[in-house]
């Protein structure tokens, strides 16, 4: 049987190989010599195409030989054709059934909550007792954090709460004007903002603006071994890094809440006075009658609870970050999402509590 000779050039590709292959099959050749003399440069693509072609020949029991091929390329082609798949020891546990998945979600959530509470113990210790130790409390850092977390959030809190006050007044006006009760816009706006919307808006904005920042900062510190460095020096991470942020949030958020209350009510005032023509003094009187110190305190209690929630979740997520840049992204997302969920739950809890205790605290 005669030997078939194929000359290939550097233009050789898969379709050319296929056409050669079809031709060989139809002519029932069983012996081929591939001559590569025309190829001067051997990029991996040509070796791979050639190897692919030769594998097809092997599958049809056509014997082949290569001519004028440099030794290096021959080695590459031999590797591509005859290599054994690398043994892998990795077993990835991907396929967990849904039930198991839900269960593991519950278990992890539980672990997270327990760990966060333990962290809070430590934080409380250093916050309350730290100032009595030598170097136990970082005052200047705490001030810096207050300005960084609190002062710089004033703009966005003012913007959003002002708009919410305005929107609330407009919505209320549409309903109340039909009864000729426009003056009660003052009651509605001030009550809604002071008791619920002010604290809620401030908390959500801070969760988005500061909770995420804290998680990302701590997460990247974990990733770059800075936390290990602190521990190796014997400096408490809670004391040195966490407490300033925690205290800063607990101080900044109530302040921002009061600020949001004022701006929100101002938004309602602007619409009522300049659009509806309610006399300014009348509106202010009505507002002062509507809200009491009680309502403000209820708002503040909510906002302190929110601050604790945001700070502890952000810190916990930051400190448990693992897996580099991707991990930081994941824990930052979780930090904001969990914060928002627990803020909503906390507001629900307090609202129900104050509903059943008759909307009052014993402050008056």
């Amino acid at each position: 049987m005669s030997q078939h000779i194929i000359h290939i050039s550097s233009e050789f590709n898969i379709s050319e190989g296929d056409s050669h292959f079809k031709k060989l099959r139809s002519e029932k050749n069983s012996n081929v010599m591939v001559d590569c003399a025309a190829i001067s440069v051997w990029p991996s693509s040509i070796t791979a195409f050639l190897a692919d072609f030769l594998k097809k020949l092997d599958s049809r029991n056509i014997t082949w030989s290569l001519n004028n091929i440099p030794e290096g390329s021959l080695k590459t082609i031999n590797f591509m054709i005859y290599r054994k798949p690398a043994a892998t020891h990795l077993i990835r546990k991907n396929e967990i059934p849904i039930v198991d998945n839900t269960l593991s979600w519950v278990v992890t959530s539980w672990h997270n909550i327990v760990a966060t509470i333990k962290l809070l113990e430590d934080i409380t210790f250093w916050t309350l007792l730290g100032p009595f130790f030598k170097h136990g409390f970082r005052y200047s850092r705490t001030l810096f954090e207050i300005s960084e977390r609190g002062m710089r959030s004033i703009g966005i809190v003012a913007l959003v709460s002002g708009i919410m006050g305005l929107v609330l007044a407009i919505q209320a006006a549409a309903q109340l004007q039909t009864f000729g009760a426009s003056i009660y816009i003052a009651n509605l706006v001030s009550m809604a903002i002071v008791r619920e919307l002010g604290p809620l808006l401030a908390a959500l904005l801070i969760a988005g603006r500061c909770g995420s920042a804290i998680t990302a900062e701590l997460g990247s510190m974990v990733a770059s071994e800075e936390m290990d460095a602190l521990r190796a020096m014997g400096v408490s991470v809670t004391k040195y890094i966490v407490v300033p942020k925690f205290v800063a949030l607990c101080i900044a958020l109530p302040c921002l809440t009061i600020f949001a209350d004022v701006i929100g009510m101002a938004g309602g005032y602007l619409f009522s006075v300049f659009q509806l023509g309610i006399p300014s003094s009348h509106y202010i009187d009505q507002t002062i009658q509507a809200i009491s110190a009680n309502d403000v305190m209820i708002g503040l209690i909510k906002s302190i609870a929110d601050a604790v929630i945001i700070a502890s979740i952000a810190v916990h997520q930051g400190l448990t970050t693992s897996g580099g840049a991707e991990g930081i992204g994941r824990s930052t997302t979780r930090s904001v999402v969990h914060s928002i969920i627990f803020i909503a739950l906390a507001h629900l809890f307090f609202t129900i509590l104050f509903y059943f205790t008759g909307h009052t605290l014993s402050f008056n």
Partner: protein
Amino acid sequence: MNKKAIIEVKDLVTSYEDNIVLDKISFTTYENEIFAVLGGSGCGKTTLLRHLLGLLRPDAGLISILGFDITKANDDEMQPLREQIGMVFQGAALFNSMTLAENISLPLEEYTDYPSRVIRDIVDWKLHIVGLDHARDYMPAELSGGMKKRAAIARAMVMDPKLLFFDEHTTGLDPVMAAELDRIIIRLRNELNITVVVVTHDLTSIRRISDRAIMIADTQIIASGSIKEMEQSSDSRVISFFMKHDKEEVLIH
């Protein structure tokens, strides 16, 4: 020789989940020596180091550092020991929000009552030792990799520790900088009479600085002694480690 033992590890066992990382490892490090822990990637070198620092707790076994058993000690009990140990992390682990001088003075401000001018003197001296006098007010992000490593050494040295740990101290450095770092380590050992433990896979550097070494592979110590002694070993894994690294050097240089 009757030298004082600084680190004693006996039958240390540790695991991540179901994987045993280190299985019954024992070794001793003596005073004023540069001791190297060798091994390929992922053999548990860094895990061992984290155990020696007390950042991880072993499953079983005993680790005694400066005559103090750290396997059962809690953080409060570890405190006095930590002031005598310095650690240089792989990525330097400087605090990015502080200047170099603040980074280095951190342990001093935490542990001592020195007035700020004294702290400043000490910090400037440590910076001078590592050749970073001009960089004291830079932020870590503004420094090159080699400068960060040297700054990390300065920070580890600031409390005048008796024991200094290095994790992969030559990683990411050019050969000139790596050699400079080796010189700094030898100088610190000679002048300040400290014990140095280096965890690495960089054989060039180890040949330059180490007195004794152990090599870890497959959860066990497979060779120990000086590098010369190790090269005589008949264990195929040891031989292949030396062969591979020598070949690598030929390729690079």
